[in-house]
């Protein structure tokens, strides 16, 4: 029992030491003395079912779950913070950690079952494939045609500037790792992206750090439209709120599909427990039925069919936009497009 207290104290100290901005934190006590420290970008309410399922299978393991932004998470692991597992939606940052030798190798039957595109070097493992979507407020778009492509969306915004002024939400790509990933991948894939960004920039867009808040504001009617929202959160919310106030759209011309990934940081101490959680997550990622889980599996039926685009590839190309020079150039261009104030 003394040991358990000590472990908790140590873990609290370890989590607090590098002075990270932890957004939320919860401790799930287990029957034993081992503590699995998880640093994640996934909101607690979304991820809790997974943690409870894990504890049902391994009741002896306590879980210390902290939520941080993807950039924070990346910085913490880079600075050597002690965590046993890092789960992030920013594939590029996760990839860079693995590439730079900050992740630990792990191999099991469950990870071996993953398709090639869902793992890299036994260092990084994908367990969900989540599309980027547009969330619309039904009420505020009443009477308008639903856009199907970015071109449609550009026309819609151009034709009804008064309806959308100040009512468009999107990620602040300077703050949000996921937003930056979505934006850079779109930059690469479709030239409509910059035109859309410019049109949005003229309509006084609201910039957000996180999908959750964007969905909140659309749901509350403060926003008419949120662009590039995490599809899984949106579906989750839609399922919980039955008011028909929200609508989820996937662009038909191109759609990003992000992989939520796990790495075991090099600093990990509870490697076995972290591996067990990865096994559970990857098994769930390969499930056939969507089931009751908040996050979609890797091979969700509409991931490929409607847009014809596979998930973002795990590979060295992800590091291109993380290069400081490239990032600076991209952000400058983005700011120019986004922050043009029209009189």
């Amino acid at each position, binding site marked *: 029992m003394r040991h358990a207290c000590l472990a908790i104290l140590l873990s609290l100290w370890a989590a607090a030491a590098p002075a990270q901005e932890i957004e939320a934190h919860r401790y799930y006590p287990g029957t034993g003395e081992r503590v699995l420290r998880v640093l994640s970008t996934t909101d607690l309410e979304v991820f809790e079912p997974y943690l409870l399922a894990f504890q049902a299978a391994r009741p002896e393991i306590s879980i210390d779950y902290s939520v941080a932004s993807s950039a924070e998470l990346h910085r913490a692991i880079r600075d050597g913070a002690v965590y046993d597992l890092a789960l992030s939606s920013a594939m590029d940052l996760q990839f860079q950690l693995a590439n730079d030798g900050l992740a630990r190798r792990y191999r099991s039957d469950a990870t071996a079952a993953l398709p090639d595109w869902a793992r890299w070097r036994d260092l990084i493992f994908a367990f969900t494939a989540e599309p980027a979507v547009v969330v619309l407020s039904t009420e505020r778009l009443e009477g308008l045609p639903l856009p199907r492509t970015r071109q449609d969306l550009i026309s819609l915004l151009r034709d009804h500037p008064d309806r959308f002024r100040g009512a468009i939400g999107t990620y602040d790509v300077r703050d949000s790792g996921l937003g930056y990933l979505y934006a850079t991948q779109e930059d690469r894939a479709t030239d409509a992206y910059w035109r859309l960004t410019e049109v949005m920039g003229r309509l006084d867009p609201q910039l957000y750090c996180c999908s959750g808040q964007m969905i909140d504001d659309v749901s509350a009617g403060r926003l008419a439209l949120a662009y590039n929202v995490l599809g899984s959160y949106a579906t989750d919310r839609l399922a919980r709120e039955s008011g028909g106030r929200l609508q989820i759209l996937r662009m038909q011309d191109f759609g990003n599909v992000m992989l939520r990934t796990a790495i075991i940081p090099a600093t990990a101490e509870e490697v076995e427990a972290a591996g067990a959680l990865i096994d559970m997550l990857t098994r769930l990622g390969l499930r056939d039925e969507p089931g009751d889980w908040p996050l979609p599996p890797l091979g969700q039926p509409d991931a490929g069919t409607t847009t014809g685009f596979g998930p973002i590839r795990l590979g*060295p190309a992800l590091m*291109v936009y993380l290069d400081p020079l490239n990032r600076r150039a991209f952000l400058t261009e983005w700011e120019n497009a986004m922050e043009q104030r029209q009189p």
Partner: protein
Amino acid sequence: MTGTGSIGRRLTLLLAGVAALLSVLSWGMVTMLARQAAERTQDNVLAASVTAIAETLRSEQGEVRLELPYSAFSMLGAIGEDRVFYTVTAGDRTLTGYADLPVPDGRGGPGRIVFATGTYRGEAIRIASVTRVVLAGTSPVPVTVTVAQTRDGVGTIAADLSQLAAILAVAFFVVAVGLSAIAARTSLRPLKELTAAVSRRGPSDLRPLRRAAPSELAPLMGALNRLMDRLNLSLRRSEDFIAEAAHRVRTPLATVRTQAEIALRSVTDDADKQRLRQMIRAVDESSRSAGQLLDHATVAFRADDLPRAPVDLADLAARTVAALEPTAAMKEIRLQLDAVPAQVSGDPVLLDSALRNVLDNAIKYSPEDTVVHLQVMSIAHEARIAVTDQGPGLGEGPARALTERFRRGSNTEGIVGSGLGLTIAEEVLRAHGGRLDLGAGERGKGTCVTLVLPSS
């Protein structure tokens, strides 16, 4: 014959050894080449990557600018799941990337790509580097773009190919061993055919071999033919010699005997008569011995190379009886022949010699005025001639011993003989695959000697 192993097996083993060596060599070479090819591929990809990055180098407002093209990194994923590191330096200043990444020395001229191998963060890496001079403001600045990649992908590709090559090498080896066995057997076939041709030949067939043979076997065949030639010649010479010797020994003995008999008739003194009789007896013994010795030599010589012809034992017995009838008549012995046809295959000269010796014994050792009975039978696969007399029998001791050379029985007092008769008969029968049975006559009286031959 002492064997020194089989040529076929040795040839197969030798060829298999060569195949094993070639398999291992080819496996090693494929493995090496695969590794080289994979390494070259990696070099090409790295070269393309640094070139793509270097092409974006430019100067804007006195500053060196560049952007990393997406393709420059995505192509690095082509080889395998390798870690990627890069750095761009302008002069001594790091513009971007991993500042501590080793940059190859010995920079080639501008635009030349330099490769190096090193370690970074505990992993072996392959580094490609290119330098371009960019005019930043007024002064030209050498800007070096370096991209490095771990070598696991290369290792995996090489290992996969090596494994494939190993499987192929083993398969090649197995096939080669099979083919070697076939090749060995095929190349040894002429030898086997020659062997078969020689062993198929009849015993007295000493004609030279006339057949097409590969050049390697021609000397062997030549030597064999010369050997047979010489053998043929020396056989003919020793036959002649035996006949010659018999003639040379017997003729003077006959002369001596004739003279001694003439002298016997003309002398009157009893002592002289006795001496002359002893002389005649000694001459008879010598003549008999010479004859039997020559017969024995003939048997020994012909048995090696038995000329076989169909022989009816009934005919043979009849002829022998006819030939010895006068001798028997002198002792008032009646020769009685019961014969059925009994075919055997053999040398009539030798068979005649065997039967003559047996019948000669029966007449010689029987008292006067008795019967010698010859019976020719054919039972199952055997043909027999049984010669039964009413004489004194073979006496005590093992009968078998009487077939030894120069062995005579105890009942031979005053009877001329050399002790070779049964030896000759026994050897003749053995040469024909038969045997000589010695036993007592009917009701334990007299002697019964049976010549047993396989019937044809």
